[in-house]
């Protein structure tokens, strides 16, 4: 006889109160229900207790805009990047130099999502994992890249180039009926002024000089309001006067944006550099002020040794 009060049978199922089971799926392949949105926590006054994480927004509270940690990339056995680690501070103007094949362009490719690293992590601010985003998403998150060869829209005017680059809703539906507001027009004009193309606003970009094309491309990057600008040999092929103006432009941009400049022209580097990183065979060889780096025996060995 069951006299004891202990029920040895399985415990009664928890009643769902007649509500449909939230995990119910009509078929096995049916996607599981999305979790209900969690209400945002009220801002905490106690900074040590739980920090606010706003996914997608750049978090530079630790003063660092870009972390590369132990990044390795190999192409058919050739190690283009070998456990590269690098940190760029917010608002910093950093120059990256190194002999051909040192991995400068591959590093840019990893940051912009064009190349996936075989190992290592790349973080934009504290929270955005670059290795998990597409190229378009990375551009949207706030990383702008200037290529070696100026790539601009040759059959559009300088003004239209900036218009297309401007931060806006870039989905097809919006773009079909988009109209330029007066503030947007002002922003384009201000950028044209900054890059010294105010007088050439209506000119076809394909007809601009080489230096002007480079500036236009930098202007296009600026229109996207990037937090981090990657510039691959920005003064290659420029005249001395153009190089000088570019240096002025970069120095004025630092602080507002973080800049990473890859360049071979040492005179140009000397005119803008505060901190220089030397890459060699896919990893950092030396880092510091230009004079320090230039006198580093290992750097001299790499550049002049063989």
């Amino acid at each position, binding site marked *: 006889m069951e006299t004891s009060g202990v029920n040895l049978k399985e415990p009664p199922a928890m009643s769902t109160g007649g509500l449909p089971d939230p995990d119910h799926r009509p078929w096995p392949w049916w996607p599981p229900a999305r979790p209900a949105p969690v209400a945002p926590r009220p801002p905490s006054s106690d900074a040590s207790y739980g920090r606010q994480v706003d996914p997608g927004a750049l978090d530079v509270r630790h003063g660092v805009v870009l972390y590369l940690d132990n990044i390795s990339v190999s192409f058919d056995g050739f190690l283009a990047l070998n456990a590269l680690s690098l940190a760029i501070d917010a608002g910093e103007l950093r120059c990256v130099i190194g002999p051909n094949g040192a991995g400068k362009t591959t590093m840019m490719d990893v940051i*912009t999502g064009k190349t996936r690293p075989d190992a290592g992590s790349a973080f934009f601010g504290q929270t955005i994992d670059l290795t998990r985003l597409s*190229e*378009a998403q990375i*551009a*949207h998150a706030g990383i*702008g*890249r200037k*290529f070696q060869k100026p*790539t*601009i*829209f*040759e*059959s*559009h005017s300088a003004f*239209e180039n900036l*218009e*297309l*680059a401007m*931060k806006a809703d*870039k*989905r*097809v539906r919006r*773009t*079909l*009926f*988009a109209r330029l507001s007066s503030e947007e027009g002002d922003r384009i004009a201000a950028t044209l002024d900054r890059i010294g193309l105010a007088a050439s606003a209506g000119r076809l970009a394909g007809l601009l000089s080489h230096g002007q094309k480079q500036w236009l491309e930098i202007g*296009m990057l600026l229109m*996207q309001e990037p937090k981090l600008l990657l510039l691959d040999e920005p003064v290659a092929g420029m005249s001395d006067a153009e190089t000088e103006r570019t240096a002025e432009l970069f120095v004025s941009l630092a602080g507002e944006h973080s800049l990473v400049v890859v360049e071979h022209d040492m005179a140009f580097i000397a005119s803008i550099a505060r901190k220089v990183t030397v890459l060699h065979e896919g990893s950092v060889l030396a880092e510091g002020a230009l004079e320090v780096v230039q006198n580093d025996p290992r750097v001299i060995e790499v550049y002049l040794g063989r």
Partner: protein
Amino acid sequence: MIFARLYGPKGWIALACAAAIVFGVFPVLNLVVPPDNPFHMSAFGVQLGGKIMCYMIVAIAMDLVWGYAGILSLGHGLFFALGGYAFGMYLMRQIGADGQYRVDMPDFMVFLDWKAFPWQWWNSDSFLWAAFLVVAVPGLLAFVFGYFAFRSRVKGVYFSIITQALTYAAMLLFFRNATGFGGNNGFTDFKRILGIPIATPEMRMALFALTGATVIATLLLGRFLVTSKFGRVLAAIRDAEARVMFCGYDTLWYKLFVWTLSAVLCGIAGALYVPQVGIINPSEMSPANSIEIAIWAAVGGRGTLVGPVIGAGLVNGAKSVFTNAFPEYWLYVLGLLFILVTLFLPNGVVGLVKRWRRAA
């Protein structure tokens, strides 16, 4: 205003003149002027004009994808033919029991001894359903094909070759009787649309005018697209797609939108073509037809919209003259034309006119 954005005053006047000719001069010459008058426009002339205007719509559709987005399709004839077949099914049902066999079924089905309509013919006696299919079938095919092609970043000559293969495969499919669309004979011998006899001068002229209205509407739609920011993004994709992506645009959806729209426009053109020409068969899907579409756009001038309209008119006008006078030489002429235009007129007829104006 939107009108000022689309065309300047001269452009609107030119468009109004074209409309006056299509809706005023041609109908009067055809319906009012007696047949013995030298100015009379024959039924053949109306049919030829209507046919060429259908090609003009296709040429505009081609220019949107090739001239603006830089996507060279060598399979646009497929979308044209699908629109034609979709509407042709309805026209076949409108024959009713007036066919050779006096049965309320298309002749080829009776000949093949089919007892019931295959599933493709569901609801094919409904005009609205046919109109829906004209848009939906080419649109859906283009969307699915384009989605996979553009997502895999298939571009340039590879994309062109795949589109060519697609239309060729479809042609082989439609040649089969079992596909259910009349095999190599296709559809012909149409009698009515909406119960109205098709072979009367009035009906022919109505179709002609409807086609003309569609050409103008397509031109204005195309103009709206290419003068919008969307159009500037398209041209930017053509010139430097990687840069457009780095600017934060997902180019897949831009290309897919214009590609699908272009296919739908071709489908509509095909649906207008079939009742006027009176036949649709799988040869419309032959690769040569699709290549010819690209030639119209190249001759007129890519990336101008009005150029391909002129190109379609010129090439097809020349074709109807040549195939009458020296039928065996037409393909040589076409090939020569393409070479000459590529070598000496990279911007087509419109480019030539622009160059003259600048010189003057």
